[in-house]
């Protein structure tokens, strides 16, 4: 038995398990608070009398496991193994276990057994557990765990004396691990250990706990047998996702169109209400167009979060994450990353916001950093324009449209590059051990409508708040870059008293727009970047469109139509714009655009971070400018290299 004067007891437990309340009750007001050497993790200790023998009680940081993936877990692990500087190996550990979350809390206890330190389980929240009409057989649980279990209540003093006695009894003993690892199991290594621990915990809880809603639990288990099945579970998951995304697309179309029309009308209204001039231009073309371009995604965001809330509240999301964890863990991502990534096919913004369900900061950031590679709906006008101009009406094997194949290829390129980048990120800048999958599968239940609506409205408000701050500011700056310096031709064209035939006036207006763009700051930028984009087959005009499309990818279409004097109202299906693109010639008379240039531009758009709204959201979500800048940098490099490879490779192969 250890010397009385040197008894050290550690208090371990999950966050919010009632550890601090118990620590205060055991040590009174004589505790000392300091930091662990070299780190800013708080270290609390205090005296505790064990049946007349003085002991030092150390309060370990709140933790879910001893896997040492976080600083807190690392410190706790070092203390238990005796490796923490200035603290000897504890003679026993009091494991604080929240009775209302028994399975999750017992996981830490099983790990403590494996470290060979004597453990006494202090069962807290027992009153709340019994109030929920559940009962726990403490003696049975103790027998199954092969370690003392004491139900305690720090407020009433229940079990405090017994806890001290049991702790004193276990000091100097060697604990027995109450389960064995199944070496013949399919799962081996750390994952196999996790399964073995949970299997044991599940059996122990089933044996020692009686639920009043036993039938409900049985029903959940039966449903789980289907929904978490390795094959049928995945089939059902794909079907559910198809329904969810199809619904988002179809239901969001009408409100998005209405919002778009609304902003168009507002813009027109402002132009007619305000005297013609710079202020009306700023409000209509800068503020309303910029903010409106983002706000139109609100219906998609509302619907997405409605479905996320419904899936989460019903308990299905945990099952989906469980199913996909194995797949995602191969590239180093958490199972929960699947939904944000699939959401990003609609728009990266709700996708990035949906990463909030991922608890691990590194896994969440890795998911955020690859989400914009998924081809969003804003890229479609660009793809459609390029395919329409150069690949329309072409077929392979007689019936497969080249356009459809190219579209599919663009989606595939995005996914493949995203997987490769995630693989590299998780092994370099966001390096972390494979995420342990410790997820409780809560019983299924009917979603609470109020919670779902509240969640949905909170997300909508946060989104609108962003649109009204960061996105508004960037829209104004971009507008100014395309608007200044002003050309004198405008005053000549718009000056009253100089009536000219409509077509001539239109033509001069278009010339004015084109000249304005050429000589604007954005135009100068286009000329400045021309030497860099020339190897990709792009001229300065495409450069201006690339810069302008940073506001939103689809802006490329309207910018090209202004540049080629087609008119602002041209869309991606406009024959005039398609003809203008095809007919555009270089000084030497050769065409600016070829099928290879179009393909190169499409590849660039798949891979480039051409979306200021996404960057603004990433800045907000990561609370730092570092990550959006990193994202912009690495995606631009990948896009440039991808486009360069496409163009130069295509030329070498004799295309273009």
């Amino acid at each position, binding site marked *: 038995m250890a010397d009385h004067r040197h008894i050290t007891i550690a208090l371990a437990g999950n966050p919010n398990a009632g550890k601090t309340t118990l620590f205060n009750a055991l040590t009174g007001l004589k505790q000392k608070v300091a930091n662990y050497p070299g780190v*800013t*993790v708080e270290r609390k200790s205090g005296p505790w009398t064990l049946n007349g023998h003085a002991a030092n009680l150390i309060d370990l*940081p*709140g933790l879910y496991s001893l896997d040492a993936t*976080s*600083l*807190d877990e690392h410190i706790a692990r070092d203390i238990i193994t005796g490796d923490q500087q200035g603290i000897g190996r504890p003679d026993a550990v009091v494991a604080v276990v929240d009775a209302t979350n028994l399975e999750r809390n017992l996981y830490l206890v099983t790990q403590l057994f494996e470290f060979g330190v004597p453990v006494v389980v202090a069962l807290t929240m027992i009153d709340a557990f019994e109030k929920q009409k559940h009962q726990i057989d403490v003696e049975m649980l103790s027998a199954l765990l092969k370690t003392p279990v004491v139900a305690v209540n720090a407020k009433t003093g229940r079990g405090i004396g017994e806890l001290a006695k049991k702790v004193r009894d276990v000091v100097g003993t060697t604990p027995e691990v109450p389960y064995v690892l199944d070496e013949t199991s399919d799962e081996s290594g750390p994952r196999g250990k996790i399964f073995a621990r949970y299997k044991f915990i599940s059996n122990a809880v089933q044996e020692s706990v009686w639920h009043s809603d036993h039938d409900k639990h049985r029903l959940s288990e039966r449903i789980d047998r289907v929904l978490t099945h390795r094959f049928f579970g995945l089939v059902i998951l794909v079907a559910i996702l198809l329904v969810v995304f199809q619904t988002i697309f179809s239901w969001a179309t009408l409100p998005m169109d209405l919002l778009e029309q609304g902003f168009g009308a507002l813009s027109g209204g402002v132009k007619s209400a305000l*005297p013609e*001039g*710079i*202020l009306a231009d*700023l409000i209509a073309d800068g503020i309303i167009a910029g903010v409106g371009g983002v706000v139109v995604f609100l219906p998609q965001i509302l619907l997405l979060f409605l479905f996320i809330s419904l899936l989460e509240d019903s308990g299905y999301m945990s099952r989906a994450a469980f199913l996909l964890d194995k797949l995602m863990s191969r590239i180093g991502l958490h199972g929960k990353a699947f939904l944000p990534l699939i959401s990003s096919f609609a728009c990266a913004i709700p996708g990035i916001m949906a990463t*909030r369900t991922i*608890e691990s*900061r590194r896994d969440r950031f890795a998911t955020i950093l690859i989400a914009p590679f998924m081809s969003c709906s804003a890229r479609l006008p660009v793809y459609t324009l390029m395919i329409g101009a150069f690949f329309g009406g072409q077929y392979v094997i007689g019936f497969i449209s080249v356009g459809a194949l190219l579209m599919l290829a663009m989606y595939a390129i995005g996914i493949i590059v995203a997987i490769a980048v995630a693989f590299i990120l998780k092994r370099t800048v966001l390096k972390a051990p494979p995420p342990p999958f410790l997820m409780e599968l809560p019983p299924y239940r009917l979603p609470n409508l109020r919670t779902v609506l509240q969640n949905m409205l*909170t997300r909508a408000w*946060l989104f609108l708040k962003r649109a009204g*701050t*960061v996105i*508004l*500011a*960037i829209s*104004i*700056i971009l507008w*100014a870059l395309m608007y200044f310096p002003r050309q004198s031709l405008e005053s000549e064209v718009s000056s009253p008293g100089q009536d000219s035939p409509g077509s001539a006036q239109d033509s001069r207006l278009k010339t004015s727009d084109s000249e304005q763009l050429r000589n604007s700051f954005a135009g100068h930028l286009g000329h400045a970047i021309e030497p860099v984009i020339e190897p990709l087959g792009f001229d300065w005009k495409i450069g201006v469109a690339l810069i302008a499309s940073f506001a939103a990818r689809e802006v490329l279409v309207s910018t090209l139509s202004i540049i080629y004097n087609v008119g602002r109202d041209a869309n991606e299906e406009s024959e005039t714009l398609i003809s203008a693109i095809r007919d555009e010639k270089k000084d030497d008379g050769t065409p600016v655009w070829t099928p290879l240039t179009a393909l190169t531009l499409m590849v660039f758009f798949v891979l480039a971070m051409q979306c200021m709204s996404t960057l603004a959201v990433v*800045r*907000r*979500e*990561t*609370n*730092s*400018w570092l990550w959006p800048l990193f994202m912009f940098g690495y995606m631009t490099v990948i896009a440039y290299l991808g486009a360069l490879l496409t163009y130069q490779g295509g030329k070498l192969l004799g295309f273009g």
Partner: protein
Amino acid sequence: MTQYAIVIIIIAAAVVFAGVSIIKKRKSFSKTHGCDTDCGCGK
């Protein structure tokens, strides 16, 4: 001229706002609580 003055003020405000957002340092994720109160997740 008034219109120009208003527009310049608006652009200047946008530049200042964007600049301040860049310079302003917010405490990122804390070690123990996952995130600070200003990260927007409402936790």
